[in-house]
């Protein structure tokens, strides 16, 4: 079962069991849920979708708002800022279509800055699950809470679920070894890419609030590598704050901030962004060897031939 399928199943159960829960959709997902008095499909009206959620929350309901990431976070961003945060009410935003999941659909269906945008607003809890079991845990917990919560679903899935909001050390390197923090669904590629390196690997699927204490405890050297499935460096400020009193170096790997005029598959785009095991290994090895940061560009790739009239 995919993360998305798990979300729909849990959302239906919550609608049936919890009179506070409501779900607001803008067509996407509407065919996956049974009709319910508190299921509101507002049509293709994403600004309204968030405004409606705010109105529901003002009346004491706990709205879940679900759509493709660009239409949930980017298009109605002012509604998220004002109708939710500024009104002082909370909703649970659950996105699908993470970063390059929609590579075949092109730029319009990609929002790798989703977490960077939401972390620019105050008070958010942000979950980046790497497994459907984690999705269910975060969704059920969010239903019982009141604040603003983002749950980012992806098509990439880890082999193992972790039952923790804190930074979990998955593999111990030697004393003084670099710490590689794999965020959400990057874990499998990170584990494969570092299998022959002397590094510690930690997993993190709740990036706000950030587990600063866990990072400090896990870091036994000075080198930190952050591997994120979205815009590179999104959580770099949290790491800098957590380690403000400790000399350290940081390599942040993630999705490049570039306009990629190329379709294809998610895994193909993952490779372009340097997030495959081999590219991760190479970047970490160069970092540990003292090479300059390679920058956040994408790998060289041919553009599709343009079509002449």
């Amino acid at each position, binding site marked *: 079962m995919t993360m998305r399928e798990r979300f729909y199943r849990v959302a239906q159960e919550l609608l049936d069991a919890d009179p506070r829960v*409501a779900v*607001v959709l803008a067509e996407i997902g509407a065919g996956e849920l049974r009709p319910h*008095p*508190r299921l*509101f499909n*507002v*049509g293709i*009206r994403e*600004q*309204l979708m*968030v*405004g*409606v*959620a*705010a*109105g*529901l*929350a*003002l*009346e*004491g*309901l706990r*709205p879940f708002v679900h759509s493709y990431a660009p239409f949930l976070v980017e298009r109605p961003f*002012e*509604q998220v800022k*004002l*109708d939710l945060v*500024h*009104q*002082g009410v909370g909703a649970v935003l659950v996105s699908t279509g993470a970063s390059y999941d929609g590579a075949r659909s092109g730029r319009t269906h990609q929002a790798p800055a989703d977490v960077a945008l939401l972390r620019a607003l105050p008070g958010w809890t942000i979950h980046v699950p790497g497994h459907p079991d984690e999705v269910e845990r975060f969704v059920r917990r969010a239903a019982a809470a009141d604040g603003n919560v983002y749950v980012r679903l992806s098509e990439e899935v880890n082999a193992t679920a972790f039952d923790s909001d804190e930074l979990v050390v998955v593999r111990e390197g030697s004393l003084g070894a670099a710490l590689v923090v794999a965020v959400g669904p990057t874990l499998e590629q990170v584990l494969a890419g570092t299998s022959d390196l002397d590094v510690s690997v930690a997993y993190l699927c709740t990036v706000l609030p950030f587990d600063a204490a866990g990072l400090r405890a896990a870091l036994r050297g000075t080198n930190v590598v952050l591997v994120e499935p979205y815009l590179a460096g999104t959580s770099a400020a949290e790491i800098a704050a957590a380690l403000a009193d400790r000399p350290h170096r940081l390599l942040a790997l993630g999705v490049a901030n570039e306009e990629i005029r190329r379709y294809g598959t998610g895994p193909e785009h993952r490779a372009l962004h340097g997030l495959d095991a081999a590219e991760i290994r190479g970047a970490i090895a160069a970092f540990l060897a003292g090479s300059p940061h390679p920058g956040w560009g994408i790998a060289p790739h041919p553009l599709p031939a343009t079509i002449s009239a």
Partner: protein
Amino acid sequence: MATTTKLGYDDLPGLLTVLTGDEKHDRSSYSTLDVLWVLYDRVLHVDPSAPDDPERDRFLLSKGHGPAAYYAVLAAKGFIPVDSLAGFGNGDSALGYHPDRLLVPGVEISSGSLGHGLPIAIGVTLALDAGGSDGPRVICLVGDAELEEGSNFEAIQLAGRLGLGRLMVVVVDNDSSTYGWPGGVERRFELEGWSAVRVDGRDHDALEAAFAAAGRDRPRVVVAEVRP
């Protein structure tokens, strides 16, 4: 049930003077003043001693800028102290140039950026409908130029199709939309299934009648025409 009158309509110019320090408060300077007064004096079921009463009518001021008239009416009706008006816009005042619902009792939404109130009002309406409460109405005030924001049309369409009879919109039409609304802005609502009426926005009896005539079978728009 209208609220208990603390001060009267004739006191409003004095309250506006306290707010702004400007003694020249011709009522034409405040396009929303008469609509707000009629709502709070004759229409809304709201009580300053119980601003969170679940059975209250919900009034959402979407057109949040120029809130002096709003604050003056709230003060006149006992929601906020008259002496709070003097700090208007100051750092230690709860009364800013755009209202904040968490700072001012009786204010249902924080507003200022245009085009947000009506979609939120639909959410409030849907929640009240889902909760099975028949009483409260949801009234949202927008400006004619504010309706240029596309988010309003997402809301106007949906409210009409869903037949949200609990919802009323009052458009204060002071002809401030640069490109205007040929045929009247109410046509955009009627096309989507709303009942619509245009009245003199300074005529208190006409405004009251326009609100009172709303049925519960579909949403209602009252266009309050206010010419300087």
